[in-house]
């Protein structure tokens, strides 16, 4: 304490002085003359003030004060206190010029003095800042903020744990909402943001000083920043560059965004929710979801600044917010889901394992809820679309193996059974899940078909391709398209055409794993496609889509094996068109048209000249006599259009096909045998109305065939000569086991089949899985075993090679790579 203080420290004397102060209003009037009586530090302080405040800080004297403070650091806190008292009085008297000088002096001292001596000085300094902030004068508030920012940049040795920043957060937040008139408004708002930024910087590293992440602070800071960003249109310009804006031209939206990035970037896992919660509330209260550009912008900012490992939390929180908004209008939900879809990709890269499925599961349950609540509302549909988009976006950024996982996961959520008497909600959910599947599928790039279509995925997918609802069947075909098409041929094969030479198709030799795949599952796939062509509820779109699937398979799996199989199927379809009692006439014509298209396509791709010639002969003849048996597919045909049965010369003849194949070095024996598709020969009315591939699956009995018999059937299968024992277990033979149950069994099984068919149509997916699983496993094991034995055998020969031994097929010239095993 000062000397004076010791002498006069009695209340009475103070009172006397108090009254004198009133008379003596000008500090300059008496200070000069009595300097000798005052403590040195006070003289140093007094001397920095000019007589006229406009003259500003007396620089020379300020240097003296600084030097004095450095040499007598123990006096620093008293200097601070004295400066504060002077300023407080000047504020009271509205002599702002002096206040500004006092603040400037304090700033300089703060910067000049050593950290360890600052502690008490800082208290006065902050009191001064607060005092200035409390004034109604914008100029002082701005000045105080600048000083505070300067303070925040100083490293303090010993943080004072008793210090609280509550007032500063409260006041700076209030300033962020300033409603002053004119220019002052923007300046105060900008100062408010700067102040908040400084508080955050000052406190963020040390929770003991002040836990800035407490909701009481975040609930002020976050809305204040957002409020300053939302009114500006700058966020609409994506390319806004934060780096080039010079310091003095920075505007509040931009600064607020910078501050927001900093805040989010510093948030550790435990703090993220404290930031996100006020963000979400702010969007709710300020109705910023619709339209959602600003929300998208902010959430992108958050996602891009948050520590990557936590980005998943943002997605999760937004998803939870969607939950909370389940009663809100669909437009709001659509907007939120849309925001989700815009940011979810950023999270995808960081999501691992269970969190991926959690997110997917969440999205799916939102879909399910939406389906349950509003079936026919347009807005609700948009919401569903937005969710599906989010799903697609998310999947898009996951590694491929996770995409398959997701597809299987989605599949597992599709309600079964697929029967006509489903509730509309079930149907909608099914088709929505299929749409989701399609979305994910489009993002997936198939490399090997076998990894894209694990049995547990393929099976239910094919099952759904036989759903009663034509739209659903169409979706399944589209899923197949996107997954099968690896060479971007989809566009060209979308419509049937007999002019396939004109198509610029990208072909690549099918790989060994592909061949294994199609040998393993071809029968199941073909059967499903064939069966779905029997549905009399098919639209042209359905039929075209099935054509596309077949054409894609044809392009993707061009090999001697598949060509025979496909031809067999094509002939089967033709037979269906000729013999079906169920199908309406236009559909029959449609079938003939796709048969022609596929026939041309197959012969072109396989490059079997005689077959191509035969195909073009038929096409030419049809063009002349029966254009209704060619594309384009119509739903109504001219009344005089004649049934193909009456035009046998326009029908593809199985015998002829076999001949041409044989003459080109193909083994067409299989084509001669009883087709799995009804009856194989022209004109023979088989009458067997096949139900669905599930029956084929139910031909489980074939698996009961003892292994020896299997080998037998293989060895007895014609066409392959000079076989080694290993080679006898060709895929072909396996396939035959699958597709051609001995004729004798057929009848006995017919009844059983009927039963099974019923079960498969009505049982739930789970039940079905139980029923079929063991058998499939058996089959699977068998196949695995065989494949193993194949791969371990010295000679890695594909059946194609065997063919090659006998005659050089024409297509070898076109697919030389095929023989590069």
């Amino acid at each position, binding site marked *: 304490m000062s000397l004076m203080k010791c002498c006069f420290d009695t209340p009475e004397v103070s009172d006397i002085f108090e009254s004198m*102060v009133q008379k003596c209003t000008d500090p300059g009037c008496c200070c000069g003359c009595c300097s000798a009586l005052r403590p040195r530090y006070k003289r140093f302080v007094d001397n920095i003030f000019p007589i006229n405040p406009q003259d500003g800080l007396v620089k020379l004297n300020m240097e003296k004060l600084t030097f004095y403070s450095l040499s007598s650091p123990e006096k620093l806190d008293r200097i601070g206190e004295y400066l504060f008292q002077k300023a407080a*009085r000047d504020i009271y008297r509205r002599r702002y010029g002096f206040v500004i000088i006092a603040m400037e002096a304090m700033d300089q001292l703060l910067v000049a003095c050593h950290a360890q001596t600052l502690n008490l000085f800082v208290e006065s300094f902050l009191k001064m800042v607060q005092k200035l902030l409390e004034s109604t004068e914008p100029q002082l508030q701005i000045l105080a903020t600048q000083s505070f920012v300067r303070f925040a940049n100083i490293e303090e040795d010993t943080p004072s744990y008793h210090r609280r920043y*509550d007032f500063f957060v409260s006041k700076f937040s209030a300033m962020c*909402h300033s*409603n002053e008139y004119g220019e002052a408004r923007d300046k105060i708002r900008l100062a408010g943001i700067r102040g908040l930024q400084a508080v955050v910087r000052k406190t963020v590293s040390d929770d003991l000083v002040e836990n800035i992440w407490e909701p009481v602070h975040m609930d002020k800071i976050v809305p*204040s920043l957002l*409020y300053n960003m939302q009114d500006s249109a700058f966020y609409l310009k994506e390319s806004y560059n934060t780096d080039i804006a010079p310091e003095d031209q920075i505007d509040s939206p931009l600064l607020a965004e910078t501050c927001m990035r900093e805040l989010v970037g510093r948030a550790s896992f435990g703090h993220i929710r404290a930031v996100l919660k006020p963000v979400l509330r702010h969007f709710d209260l300020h109705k910023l979801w619709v339209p959602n550009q600003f929300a998208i912008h902010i959430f992108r900012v958050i996602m891009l600044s948050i520590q990557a490992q936590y980005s998943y939390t943002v997605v999760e929180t937004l998803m939870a917010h969607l939950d909370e908004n389940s009663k809100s209008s669909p437009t709001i939900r659509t907007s939120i889901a849309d925001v989700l879809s815009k940011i979810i990709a950023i999270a995808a890269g960081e999501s691992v394992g269970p969190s991926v499925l959690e997110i997917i599961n969440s999205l799916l349950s939102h879909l399910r809820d939406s389906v349950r609540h509003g079936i026919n509302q347009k807005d609700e549909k948009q919401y569903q679309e937005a969710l599906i988009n989010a799903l697609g976006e998310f999947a898009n950024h996951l590694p491929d193996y996770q995409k398959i996982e997701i597809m299987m996961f989605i599949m597992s959520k599709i309600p079964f059974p697929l029967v006509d008497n489903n509730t509309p909600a079930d149907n909608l959910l099914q088709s929505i899940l299929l749409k989701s599947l399609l979305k994910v599928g489009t993002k997936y790039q198939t490399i090997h078909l076998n990894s894209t279509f694990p049995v547990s995925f393929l099976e239910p997918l094919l099952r759904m391709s036989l759903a009663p609802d034509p739209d659903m069947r169409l979706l399944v075909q589209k899923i197949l398209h996107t997954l099968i098409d690896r060479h971007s041929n989809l566009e060209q094969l979308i419509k049937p055409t007999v002019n396939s030479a004109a198509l610029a198709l990208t072909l690549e030799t099918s790989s060994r794993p592909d061949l294994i795949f199609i040998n393993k599952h071809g029968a199941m796939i073909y059967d499903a496609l064939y069966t779905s062509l029997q549905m009399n509820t098919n639209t042209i779109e359905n039929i075209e889509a099935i054509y596309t699937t077949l054409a894609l398979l044809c392009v993707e799996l061009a090999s001697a094996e598949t060509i025979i199989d496909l031809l067999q199927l094509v002939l089967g379809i033709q037979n269906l068109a000729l013999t079906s009692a169920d199908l309406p006439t236009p559909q029959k014509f449609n079938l003939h048209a796709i048969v022609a298209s596929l026939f041309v396509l197959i012969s072109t791709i396989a490059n079997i000249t005689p077959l191509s010639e035969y195909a073009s002969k038929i096409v030419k003849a049809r063009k002349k006599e029966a254009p209704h048996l060619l594309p384009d597919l119509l739903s109504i045909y001219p009344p005089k259009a004649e049934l193909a049965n009456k035009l046998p010369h326009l029908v593809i003849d199985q015998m002829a096909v076999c001949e041409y194949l044989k003459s080109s070095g193909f083994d067409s024996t299989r084509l001669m045998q009883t087709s799995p598709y009804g009856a194989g020969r022209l004109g023979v009315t088989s009458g067997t109305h096949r139900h669905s591939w599930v029956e084929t699956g139910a031909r489980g009995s074939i698996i009961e065939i003892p292994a020896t018999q299997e080998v037998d059937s293989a060895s007895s299968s014609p066409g392959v000569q000079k076989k080694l024992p290993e080679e006898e277990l060709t895929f072909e033979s396996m396939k035959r086991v699958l597709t051609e149950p001995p004729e004798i069994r057929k009848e006995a099984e017919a009844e059983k089949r009927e039963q099974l068919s019923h079960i498969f149509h009505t049982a739930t997916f789970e039940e079905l899985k139980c029923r079929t699983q063991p058998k499939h496993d058996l089959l699977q094991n068998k196949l695995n075993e065989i494949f193993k034995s194949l791969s371990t055998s010295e000679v890695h020969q594909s059946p194609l090679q065997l063919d090659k031994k006998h005659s050089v097929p024409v297509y070898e010239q076109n697919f030389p790579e095929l023989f590069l095993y």
Partner: protein
Amino acid sequence: MEDFKFLFKVVLVGNAGVGKTCLVRRFTQGLFPPGQGATIGVDFMIKTVEVDNEKVKLQIWDTAGQERFRSITQSYYRSAHALILVYDISCQPTFDCLPDWLREIEEYASSKVLRILVGNKIDREDREIPTFVGEDFAARHNMYFLETSAKEAENVEKLFMKIAEDLMQQARNKDLSRYECSTTNITARTSSVNDSSCCSKLT
């Protein structure tokens, strides 16, 4: 001058347009602002009053009534020593919203907060809420009650003085909510400043 002994935080809440800002400005600046615009977020004012010869500093946080600012305004409830809940006696809906406001206060403010119900604009002819209705409501919810007019400066001073007195009483009794920002020590220093600036007259 920084010689107050107590610092109290007072927060004003209530529907938009009931006159919160006018009340604060009447009290702190002694005027009735013409064409007062709606408050955005939160406003801040300060006023030092004297109670029993002690200086009491009132930090007044004037919140926006508009719904969209609710999240930021609520964050100011927590540290309040006193909450002034204002309605407009000529506007029934502002009275009808009081239960909602109480719920918010219950949720966000400290349980010890001093609560005052204020019916403002009593200068208006078109009263819709009779005094006893307001009184009754306040009594049922354990609040002080006062009717004011920011326009005619009716009861405004009294409102804030009452709050200051009450809070000081509370602080003295329970020694709670006491702010030691300015201890006797600082007061002494303040007088020493006075000493020095006028010492010449003594000699």
